[in-house]
């Protein structure tokens, strides 16, 4: 509505801006509180006090956590699953979606039909658990990677995106003698970088945030992911989960340690957030109501 160039804010604007500011604060305050307590020095920490900013700054809680085996193990687990899982997601999803753009390919409609079916029906968690168990994947990181290799929603959106690419470029490449695989790798993939960026972030966030599958498939605590560790520390209030070679736990309040573990579990999300915000918004529009 750029046609209206009023310099003065109306009553409506004041009310609107105020309400929006309040909503933003509601979103922000839990973050501020968690960050604040996690950076509070043990010497000034009082359990029943309300903090939005540390009285005295300290990295004691972070030093403590980072000195423990359980956190380092959890970080390694989550990083491995996220990096390997995302890479495989991209390879399988984009190559299959590209094949599905070939409407005349025999069997294509059957494939599409089954993919769409998995969008609206699945066997539920017990049969999937039995399958992972039968495959011998329990307590293996692959239990979190293979079952999440791709999904119907991603395939449908990527396929729509690939279908929107100009077909003249593919035709020209074929005339030049490019093989089908060559067309895919040299023409389609370079043109798909925006979608690849979007889905890299999407898959990475999904892997990083996975909790339930990690919880049921990785009972060995040395293989726990960050989300499982944080859940154990905070929601289960179980400090045994943080047993380690670190300093004297009694000198660092439990609350600051738990707050710091929450922060560490979401720091990567905050770091890549500017890219997330830009690319996911595009992703939503790519998928329209499918999102």
């Amino acid at each position, binding site marked *: 509505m750029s046609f209206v160039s009023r310099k003065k804010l109306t009553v409506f604007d004041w009310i609107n*801006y105020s309400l929006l500011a309040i909503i933003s604060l509601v979103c922000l305050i839990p973050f501020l*509180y968690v960050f604040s307590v996690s950076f509070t020095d043990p010497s000034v920490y009082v359990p029943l006090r309300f903090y939005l900013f540390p009285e005295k700054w300290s990295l004691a809680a972070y030093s403590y956590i980072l000195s423990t085996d359980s956190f380092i193990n959890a970080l390694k687990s989550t990083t491995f699953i996220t990096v390997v899982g995302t890479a495989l997601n991209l390879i399988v999803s984009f190559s299959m979606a590209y*094949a599905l753009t070939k409407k005349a390919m025999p069997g294509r409609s059957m494939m599409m039909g089954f993919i769409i079916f998995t969008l609206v029906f*699945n066997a539920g968690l017990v049969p999937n658990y039995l399958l992972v168990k039968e495959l011998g994947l329990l307590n293996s990181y692959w239990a979190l990677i293979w079952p999440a290799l791709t999904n119907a929603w991603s395939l449908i959106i990527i396929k729509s995106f690939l279908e929107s690419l100009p077909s003249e470029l593919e035709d020209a490449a074929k005339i030049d003698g490019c093989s089908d695989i060559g067309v895919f790798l040299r023409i389609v993939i370079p043109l798909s970088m925006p979608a690849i960026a979007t889905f890299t972030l999407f898959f990475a966030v999904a892997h990083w945030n996975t909790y339930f599958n990690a919880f049921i498939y990785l009972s060995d605590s040395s293989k726990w992911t960050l989300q499982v560790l944080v859940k154990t520390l905070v929601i289960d209030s179980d400090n045994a989960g943080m047993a380690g070679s670190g300093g004297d736990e009694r000198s660092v309040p439990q609350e600051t340690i738990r707050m710091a573990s929450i922060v560490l579990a979401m720091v990567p999300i905050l770091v890549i957030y500017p890219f997330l915000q830009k690319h996911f918004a595009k992703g939503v529009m790519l998928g329209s109501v499918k999102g």
Partner: protein
Amino acid sequence: MQKPDMATNVYAAKGYWSRLGAQMYQYRAMYLLALPGILFFLLFKLTPLWGLMFAFKDYNPYLGFFGSEWVGFKHFNALFGDRNFYMMLRNTFAINVFGIVFMFPLPILLALMLNEVRHEAFKRINQSIVYLPHFLSWVVVASMTFFVLSTDVGIVNKLIAEAGYETISFLSQPKYFWGLITAQSMWKEVGWGTIIFLAAMAGVDPQRYEAAVVDGANRFRQIWHITLPAIRPTIIILLILRLGQMADVGFEQMLLMMNPLVMQVAEVFDTYSYTQGILRGQISSGITVGMFKGVVGFILVMGSNYIVKKSGHEGIY
């Protein structure tokens, strides 16, 4: 003339298969690209469907998949005769009603408010803040909820105590539970939910607002007569699709927020399937619950998708 007919049939059959073979050969590179995905769907999506047979069998680990005894609808009869079933049904329904009544309108209102902001920087900052919770894991959200609402370390109860009142057990009293998880979902998803509506609003012709101003319409009337009608189709589509998901409740959210004190209002089909089928090893009853929920969910989603498509819009597929 038997011989010519037979020859014709054989010839036709050969023609069909040779043409199919030629076509498949032509697309051999595509099959290669699709192969990992095909194997994935066959192994991880199709194979588990066989597990649904245990809803009609008594699972016996020694007899295995094919050896376990068929028992017909025994497990379904047990399920429908169990009081827990009706508790789960009520909880699922109540949580969804809370979600539709209190949460569904919120992104619409927020999108309308954001759409009215002329100051571009304020709008961008505001959007950045309200979108952020969407990307957090449910573990982080549940952990933050704990530190906001718990009686011992929660920020809200610290303020309440500081004001001289008695602390409130938000997390362990059943009467707060449905409101709690609805508020939690609101906090996490309201910002992100605005994207679709803001995109729909961006498509409105600015001249319509100009004409309305000339006619003396104030901001509220402009919203009511121009903006809301423009996004009405989007609202209707999303509402119908949302109704199609009435069998679903956020499983991780429920699992993380459940505790023994609120079990009566928190237990839903997926959490029950998990405790019965995985924690207690009651494979058949766990699968039966999951299958019931899956079939009902399937019917609801297909129904809502059909309605959306019938009204001329694009469904989920």
